[in-house]
């Protein structure tokens, strides 16, 4: 197997918002190589619709302090407040930088960036909803990603599209490089570097009903876990309340921001009961629980397991101008026009708050004591600075990717001179080649699809919005059997060229590892906080559990350490909306 060697000062894995933004930052001071499973503009960031939050105050008075308070309260007080403050105060400059790069934001009559209301974003510490989400129709992710990728092209960043990363090589606590395969022809490539930025996004594909793309399998997280690095807050996985029934396609919160309301089987606007002040614009975890609660108590639309998102009263012109994308989704997939008929929606797996633990400058942490892995950085949804804590507010994700993508890139560049070039040993490469061949030649009777379907189904049934100890224990056993079945997988496609079946098998292995971390993290956190709701421990327990979970993979399974939450300005209080 002939191996092609490359050297870049910085290797970035993932070409979504975080990847491209850090590539732009690094390109000014060093050679940058970006690896991606897809053509960059097809990264899942392009599916983000709602908006990107910043206290610009273009439409009404706003302040980064309120934005900080909303994010902290939205995170159910698990977010590190120093990181949140950095994000909310950096937001304004970052959005203006994005606009200078060419992001075609929608505009106010005065020509400024237009902003709209969004779930959980309020004025003066929770009084009334505020217009803080800068948007570009309901294609904000698409608009920002295209602009960032285009600026990368302008700056001459080298992209390796359709490359699948097989291993992130870390030796004696320093980054050496990455081993990847070119999907197009199966050739093996080795990228040695001084720094690596992981920006591979979420892992929603672990759940059955998800808004995430097929590429969001989170294999890089599991590669780091297998090398003894921790994963933080993995039990917090956000379920977006309004996904199209049966398809999981997202109807942006922007629809509720523009006045859409949720109705149950009796036609009641039930959110008034759950969040009297902010109603339908409550944070996502609350709305998801409210919807599933209504369904479980038999108030779903004519008894079935979905509710209605009603936009009929919203002015038609606003729907056409600001929500064109979801209008086409409803027409294409459900055959309904949102301005004439209500939209059937259910909660769908959407965002991973947890991920690779990093400090405020994107450096990956090796342990709870704050020690870092030299040259390893992470940004975006795959990272967990923890600005989102237990639940993310809408349009804070795009902000997180761009703010911390930039910071990770800046830190990586600033430390280039005192880091030695990475060196990847032969054995490591042959180990990887070995593992691929074992998958290819295995003679079992299982197929990738059946194991994956069972994984997704059991995760969806036993580890989604409502969780119980008994179910989580059963889930962990099921995952063990899945691990055994994974060894029996038979691959029909033996060719080297574009072998998607082999790639899916590799991804599946990593997905099972991640599922186990999520399930065991959820089991050990005996409280309810943000998106993590335990029916057997419904109360939030700040005395014991105001801390981050660091999950490590030891010989005899997952073990945990804890890191205290950085509280600066806001003391934990009861979360009412």
């Amino acid at each position, binding site marked *: 197997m002939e191996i092609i060697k490359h050297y870049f000062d910085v290797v970035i894995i993932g070409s979504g918002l975080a990847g491209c933004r850090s590539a732009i930052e690094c390109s000014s001071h060093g050679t940058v190589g970006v690896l991606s499973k897809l053509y960059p503009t097809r*990264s899942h960031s392009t599916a983000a619709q709602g908006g990107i939050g910043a206290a610009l105050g273009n439409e009404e008075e706003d302040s980064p302090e309120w934005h900080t308070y909303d994010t902290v309260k939205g995170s159910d007080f698990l977010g590190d407040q120093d990181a949140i403050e950095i994000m909310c105060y950096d937001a304004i400059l970052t959005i203006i930088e994005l606009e*200078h790069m060419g992001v075609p934001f929608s505009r106010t009559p005065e020509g*400024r960036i237009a902003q709209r209301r969004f779930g959980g974003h309020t004025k003066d510490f929770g009084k009334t909803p505020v217009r803080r989400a800068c948007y*570009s129709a309901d294609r904000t992710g698409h608009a920002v990603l295209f602009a960032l990728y285009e600026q990368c*092209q302008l700056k001459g960043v080298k992209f390796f599209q359709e490359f699948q990363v097989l291993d992130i090589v870390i030796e004696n606590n320093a980054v050496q490089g990455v081993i990847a395969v070119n999907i197009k022809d199966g050739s093996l490539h080795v990228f040695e570097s001084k720094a690596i930025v992981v920006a591979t996004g979420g892992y929603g594909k672990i759940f059955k009903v998800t808004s995430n793309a097929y590429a969001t399998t989170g294999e890089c997280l599991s590669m780091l876990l297998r090398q003894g690095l921790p994963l933080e807050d993995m039990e917090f996985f956000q379920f977006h309340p309004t996904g199209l029934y049966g*398809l999981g396609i997202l109807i942006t919160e922007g629809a509720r921001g523009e006045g859409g309301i949720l109705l149950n089987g009796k036609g009641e606007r039930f959110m008034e009961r759950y969040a009297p002040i902010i109603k339908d614009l409550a944070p996502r975890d609350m709305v998801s629980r409210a919807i599933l609660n209504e369904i479980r108590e038999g108030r779903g639309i004519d008894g079935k397991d979905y509710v209605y998102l009603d936009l009929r009263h919203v002015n038609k012109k606003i729907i056409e101008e600001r929500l064109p994308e979801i209008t086409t989704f409803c027409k294409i997939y459900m055959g309904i026009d949102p301005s004439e008929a209500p939209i059937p929606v259910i909660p769908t797996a959407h965002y991973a708050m947890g991920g690779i633990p990093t400090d405020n400058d994107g450096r990956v942490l090796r342990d709870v004591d704050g020690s870092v892995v030299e040259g390893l950085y992470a940004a975006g949804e795959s990272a967990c600075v923890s600005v989102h804590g237990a639940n993310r507010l809408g349009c804070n994700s795009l902000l997180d990717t761009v703010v911390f993508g930039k910071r990770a890139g800046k830190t990586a560049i600033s430390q280039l001179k005192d880091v030695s070039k990475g060196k990847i040993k032969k054995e490591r490469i042959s180990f990887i080649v070995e593992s691929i061949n074992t998958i290819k030649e295995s003679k079992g009777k299982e197929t990738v699809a059946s194991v994956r379907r069972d994984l997704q189904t059991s995760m969806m049934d036993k580890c989604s919005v409502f969780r119980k100890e008994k179910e989580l224990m059963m889930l962990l056993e099921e995952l063990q059997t899945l691990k055994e079945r994974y060894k029996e997988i038979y691959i029909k*496609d033996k060719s080297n*060229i574009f072998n998607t079946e082999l790639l899916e098998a590799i991804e599946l292995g990593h997905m099972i590892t991640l599922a186990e971390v999520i399930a065991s993290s959820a089991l050990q956190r005996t409280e309810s906080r943000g998106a993590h709701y335990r029916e057997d421990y419904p109360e939030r327990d700040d005395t014991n559990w105001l801390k981050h979970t660091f999950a490590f993979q030891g010989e005899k399974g997952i073990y945990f350490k804890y890191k205290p939450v950085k509280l600066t300005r806001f003391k934990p209080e009861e979360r009412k909306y």
Partner: protein
Amino acid sequence: MDKYYTFKIKRYLPDENPQTRWDEFRVKLNSIERVLDGLIKIKETRDGTLTFRKSCAHGVCGSCAMKISGKNRLACQTLVKDMPEMIEIEPLPALPVIKDLVVDMSLFFRKNDEVLPYLINNETPPERERIQSPEDQHKILESLTCVMCGSCTTACPIFWADKEYLGPSALLKAYRFIFDTRDRAKEQRLATINSEHGIWRCHSIFNCVEVCPKQIDITKHILLLKRLAVKRGFKGGVE
């Protein structure tokens, strides 16, 4: 209510002999399922070697463009209930096939790169965001929605014949930047598309408009570019 559909798929497997063949699979699909769901079901349960690109599965990323029943479409956006019982599926025309329904898109992306697809504005940026009226933003709104799936360029008879033709997608991208009030490279871009293989190769065939999964009226944008080039020609290339 479920129905049986026959997927007639054009296969290309470089390692096998013969490399190309037609496979037929009968699959049961319900009314909200799409061609992509059918392809996935076939790959999962019938033939693991069937290869195709996919990612977002709701028509925003542009990975799964292919020729379905003789017309370029996004597999994830084409509902089987709108298709005949027998669905013929082939890779995008006029591009080299890598395997089954996966084509080598690099020629298509190179076309895009030729029109300098990035905002060029070397003036010192203002403190706050650059002002742009809603009307100006609206002018480029339609051309912004392009997801670069490749359906239009590979459906254009001119591109089939002349691979040097920039193609509707690249011309639409040129439009997006030429008509963006914040861009300062209008002359450069106009020079690129005013060439022998640029806008003058467009003969208002409208195939691109027929196939665009985001319903963009691409030919209208190319006609606007033609009129701009003519107007600019009379003014001697000065703003």
